[in-house]
């Protein structure tokens, strides 16, 4: 008998002495988040309840990132509602356009999520922070209102599935490909209600940006959370983001925190409902075809699919390493004349870094556009909507029917190298073809 890392974290956030999968708990929340789509509903519900003061103004994050910079009057109204609420309740982690980034890239970068934390967010991709060894999961707006009021959330302790990855990754293959391959193997419902625990020698060497991409898409397999036990890569990342002088961090970790995180992992006798083991040494870059993220093929097997648009960005793949990967392919090349390339850094910090490294120049010289941070086209919001019959390759997370615009448009999902190479060729290709 032993606990999974998820059970350990959840237990620590209750007043119980023991916990078991399937049990309902009221858990204390370290950080909750909402955006310009989900927070307005939460705020209205909380106000109906009669909320006078949020449970803790340092543990509430409000990030208008979906339809911002405001795409129309209704979006402006929703953002104003969020802004007014943030002001009234003196919310410390409200991020206005100019300081804003895509929430799931911004919070880790700001040092607001630590290993062992319990984070809930009214956004399904809140599962991203599992990459840091936190339990984090997407909830609804009413849940978020409940957290504003009580600081707690109801949760069913999830059963866990263990995924062991073995082998050295080939060139152009990263976290996005590992998670697309995993969703291909288990299906879009394969981990419904479950905690997905990623481990093995491949994961131990996987950089943090790739880990964030992987855990980000746990929801695409139905997962309640994705999690990777903290290790040296995690500790180095936390040290880096919490050492920034000018940035706000929720708490600065101490020596004892680092020691505790080193021991935060599943027990030997922990129970898993399933264990999957994948040899990924021969894995190619993966592409998910319409209209499900599980409809996956190796890039070299996707033949004769011409594209109208290539989107590089989102909470899945809008980080600096993603932009570097795309730029390494686009340097000195031209985007195909039939293709619109849209590159969206996930945060202002990433934007600035891309500027310093000359990446923006590479994208613009290649014939692409470089946008301010926004979720934008990923969910068919703005900044790159598709019309009838159009097709995009995107580094985003969902290729559902009509996701990026017209119900008769198509979205193919891939990593940034495939999206960049495809932009050059005008059709979906393996990066080696460029």
């Amino acid at each position, binding site marked *: 008998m032993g606990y999974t890392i998820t059970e350990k974290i959840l237990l620590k956030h209750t007043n119980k002495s023991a916990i078991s999968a399937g049990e309902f708990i009221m858990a204390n929340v370290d950080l909750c988040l909402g955006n310009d789509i989900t927070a307005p509903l939460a705020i209205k519900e909380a106000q109906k309840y009669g909320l006078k003061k949020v449970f803790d103004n340092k543990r509430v994050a409000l990030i208008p990132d979906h339809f911002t910079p405001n795409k129309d009057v*209704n979006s402006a109204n*929703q953002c104003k509602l969020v802004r007014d609420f943030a002001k009234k309740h003196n919310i410390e982690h409200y991020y206005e356009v100019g300081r804003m980034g895509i929430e799931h890239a911004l919070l880790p970068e700001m040092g607001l999520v630590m290993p062992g934390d319990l984070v809930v967010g*009214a956004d399904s991709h809140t599962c991203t922070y599992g990459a840091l060894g936190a339990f984090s999961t*997407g909830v609804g707006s009413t849940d978020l209102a409940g957290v504003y009021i009580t600081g707690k959330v109801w949760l069913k302790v999830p059963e866990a599935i263990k995924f062991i990855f073995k082998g050295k990754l080939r060139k152009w293959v990263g976290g996005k490909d590992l998670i697309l391959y995993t969703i291909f193997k288990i299906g879009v419902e394969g981990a419904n209600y479950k905690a997905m625990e990623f481990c093995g020698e491949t994961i131990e060497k996987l950089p943090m940006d790739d880990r964030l991409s992987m855990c980000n898409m746990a929801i695409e397999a139905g997962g309640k959370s994705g999690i990777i036990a903290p290790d040296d890569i995690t500790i180095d990342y936390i040290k880096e983001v919490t050492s920034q002088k000018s940035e706000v961090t929720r708490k600065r970790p101490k020596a004892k925190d680092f020691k505790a995180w080193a021991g935060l992992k599943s027990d030997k006798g922990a129970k898993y409902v399933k264990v999957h083991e994948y040899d990924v040494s021969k894995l190619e870059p993966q592409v998910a075809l319409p209209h499900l993220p599980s409809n996956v093929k190796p890039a070299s097997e996707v033949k004769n699919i011409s594209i109208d648009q290539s989107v590089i960005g989102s909470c899945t793949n809008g980080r600096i390493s993603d932009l570097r990967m795309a730029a390494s392919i686009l340097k000195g090349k031209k985007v195909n004349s039939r293709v619109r390339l849209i590159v969206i850094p996930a945060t202002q910090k990433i934007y600035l870094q891309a500027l310093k490294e000359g990446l923006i120049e590479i994208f613009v010289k290649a014939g692409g556009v470089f946008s301010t941070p926004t979720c934008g086209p990923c969910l068919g919001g703005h900044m790159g909507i598709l019309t009838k019959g159009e097709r995009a390759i995107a580094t985003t997370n*969902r290729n559902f029917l*009509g996701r990026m615009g017209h119900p008769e448009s198509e979205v193919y999902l891939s990593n940034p190298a495939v999206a960049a190479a495809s932009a050059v060729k005008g059709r979906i290709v393996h990066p080696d073809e460029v």
Partner: protein
Amino acid sequence: MILNGKAWKFKDNVNTDEIIAAKYLDTTDPLDLGRHCMETISPDFLKKAQKGDIIVAGNNFGCGSSREHAPISIKGCGVSCVIAKSFARIFFRNSINTGLPILESKDAPDSISEGDEIEIDLEKGRIKNLTKNTVYSSQPFPKFMQDIVKEGGWLSYLKSNENKK
């Protein structure tokens, strides 16, 4: 509570973008959201569905985004209940939290045809197909969830617990 309505059939993996597309998420009004429910995958649904009708779907209903606008739009267009073989977890908790009646049944969805007259006893979790004269059972909710539903949603549950203190 007894619910009565005609069945509208949907596939596996109906996602929240299909229930209510993101372009309509610039409002939280249930009636506005209800006007676009399911329009991407079933343009006829809103034209023909009557108040009280029932959505019957396959596995993983409501997968994708966490938008609570999805159950709100279903309620907003007048649907009284969703029966599915299984629900995606965030949609499931959003339905419990906002008081949209949902039932999980492995056998009912395959046996119910579009247009069948359905009668649902929510307390007993019993689904009656009046057209085919068959009865199906559904998975009962755990007590904790039943208590939330009885109170009319999560915040009402919190309020009532606060008042009891």
